[in-house]
């Protein structure tokens, strides 16, 4: 199927630093710290903001994202709820109706499922149902995606599910800098945002420029390139940057586009990138069928049909449940699978 040369045990240099603002004025923070700081500032800036969920208070969340916030803002603004996700999200609806800005957490992506009724039927529709009189300024934080060898339901990729729901916006940061700025932005919107945090990237430190975030909307080129665009979000952005370095060794100049907002998708930036490179591969952890990659591929086709050199390729998880830790690396797109996807696009010839 491919004329790619397969090399066993080849070692390569470490991936380059991620793109973004200049190094001046950058603090080295983990994504956990960056998110914690963003919540801290949002709580300080708006007295209507509330942070709550299972173990968010005294413990500071199972990933410590809300660490120290209850001590600082008190038990009325940062609080533990009983263990019931539908209850948490349903209550968020009522609090929003009462004029608050809830930032609820579901502890793990898989536990958004018990709340799906409130998310889909209520949070996504209340603004519409109320003819705009009851907006839903809810930011639902969801530790998301795989990569930590967790038990079942502690690693899921739900972006397509959420993106499909009218009335919801969906965003996923790829690094600490993005996490800080995107959360601060999302938490101050008048509409519901599903904020998908890549839990495998919580602890790696990277530069955060607190004062220069750049635009908080749309997609972002994390590495410019000429020959092909890799489109990714969340934890897959870092992997795609590694792939781009490896591809450069083979003389292929890859652009990496961090989609960031999975709804609304920034079709303009997507088209601008692919109009230049004329080739695209979209990478996600979620299963292939009806995954967000299909939406991205369609948007690229729509915007770049006359210049595309090959059909948009998808490198994704398989149509199987997230497997147990032992098989997780077989499921999540790895470097070789992404390189193979690139190769398929490169060698495509019309006719």
């Amino acid at each position, binding site marked *: *199927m491919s004329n790619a040369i397969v090399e066993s045990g080849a070692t390569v240099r470490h991936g380059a630093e991620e793109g973004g603002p200049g190094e001046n004025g950058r603090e080295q923070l983990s994504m956990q710290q960056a998110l914690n700081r963003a919540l801290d500032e949002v709580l300080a800036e708006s007295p209507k903001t509330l942070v709550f969920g*299972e*173990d968010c*208070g*005294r*413990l*500071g969340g*199972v990933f410590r994202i809300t660490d120290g916030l209850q001590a600082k803002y008190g038990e009325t603004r940062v609080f*533990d709820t*009983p*263990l*019931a996700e*539908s*209850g948490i999200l349903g209550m968020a609806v009522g609090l929003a109706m009462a004029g608050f800005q809830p930032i609820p957490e579901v502890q793990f992506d*898989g*536990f958004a*499922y*018990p709340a799906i009724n409130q998310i889909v039927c209520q949070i996504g529709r209340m603004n519409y149902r109320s003819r705009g009189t009851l907006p839903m300024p809810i930011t639902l934080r969801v530790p998301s995606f795989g990569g930590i*060898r*967790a*038990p*079942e*339901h*502690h690693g899921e990729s739900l972006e397509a599910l959420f993106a499909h729901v009218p009335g919801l916006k969906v965003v996923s940061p790829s690094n600490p800098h993005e996490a800080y700025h995107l959360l601060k932005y999302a938490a101050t919107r008048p509409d519901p945002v599903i904020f998908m945090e890549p839990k495998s990237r919580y602890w790696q430190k990277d530069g955060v420029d607190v004062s220069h975030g750049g635009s908080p909307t749309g997609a972002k080129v994390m590495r410019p390139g000429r020959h092909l665009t890799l489109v990714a979000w969340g934890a897959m952005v870092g992997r795609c940057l590694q792939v781009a370095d490896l591809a450069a060794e083979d003389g292929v100049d890859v652009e990496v586009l961090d989609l960031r907002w999975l709804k609304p998708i920034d079709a303009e930036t997507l088209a601008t990138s692919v109009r230049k490179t004329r080739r695209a591969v979209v990478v996600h952890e979620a299963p*292939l*069928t009806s995954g967000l990659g299909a939406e991205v591929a369609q948007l690229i086709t729509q915007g770049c049909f006359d210049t595309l050199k090959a059909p948009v390729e998808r490198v994704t998880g*398989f*149509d*199987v*449940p997230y*497997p*147990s*830790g*032992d*098989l*997780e690396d*077989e*499921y999540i797109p790895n470097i*070789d*699978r992404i390189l*193979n996807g690139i190769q398929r696009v490169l060698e495509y010839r019309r006719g």
Partner: protein
Amino acid sequence: MDTLPPPDSGSAAVPLTSRQLRELYSLMVAVRHLDSSAVAWQRQGIIPGYAPELGQEAAQVGSGYAVDLARDFVFPTYREMGVARAMGVDMVAYMATHKATWHGGLYDPIESRLAPIQAVVAGSVLHAVGWAHGQTLAGRDGVAMSYFGDGASSQGDVHEAMNFAAVMKAPVVFFVQNNGWAISVPADRQVAGGSVAARAGGYGIPAIRIDGNDVVAVFEATRRALAHCRAGNGPVLVEAMTYRRGPHSTSDDPGRYRSLAEERDGAGADPLERFRQRLLADGTADEAFFAAAMADAKAEEEEIRAGIQALGPRPGEEMFSLVFQETTPVLQAQAAIWREESEHV
């Protein structure tokens, strides 16, 4: 609290024999040792994580021991190692879920009468009701045992399950281990009114609240509950008051939310030590027996650890082959690509 009608003078009232009492002790020692060893395995890098049940040995062994393996079916959470061991489940296959080999474990649920390990809090409580109603429909006399905790009792599914079971008179024992803590949240911040058992009354379900650290009391209450269900009287709720002496999981740090003094006061007497004293006092067992039970527990743990260490990853093919009974062309194509691109074929 005990609103369950007293047992008839049938088998549900027969006292445990000395042999059974000693067997219960041996099981508790085996479970205690395996549980603390599993925590050590995690520290040694043998397994990535584990949810300890330290302190809940009496609640788990006593209830699991009462199950009729020929008829009943048990729906566990992720913290039911003691129940599984008391039911005679293959413990390497059980622990495989904590080795991250396969979600749900590798044991055969049908054979062992234990549903796959459930990671979703309150995820399987309604399944128990469905299975139990199936017994009614099929004219069988099996009883479903549904395990859940104080934290799970907050989930809507639990209330739906209790209502369904009562409406349909389904033979379900809702076995609640109230261990005082749902990760960092104490039961008094979780269970309004303070008692899960008290809620059963609202559904017309008889309930017993017992000392979950007294293995004999747990066994007898479970046996009564099972007999009540088996006789066609509908569901029962048993709330076993116990204490999660350890962390929620091997990555949890209880020092962030409770003090050692709170732990000491909350935990009360060690259920294993209590039972030991009782057996000693009434002459059912002696020091030689206890020493032998401990030696057996150690030998058993070594065997299980060796099995876990030897347990390799499942073939990646199983990711694809176990999704459906009748696979799809798309999935077959994905499996073919995976084979081609994988290092592990």
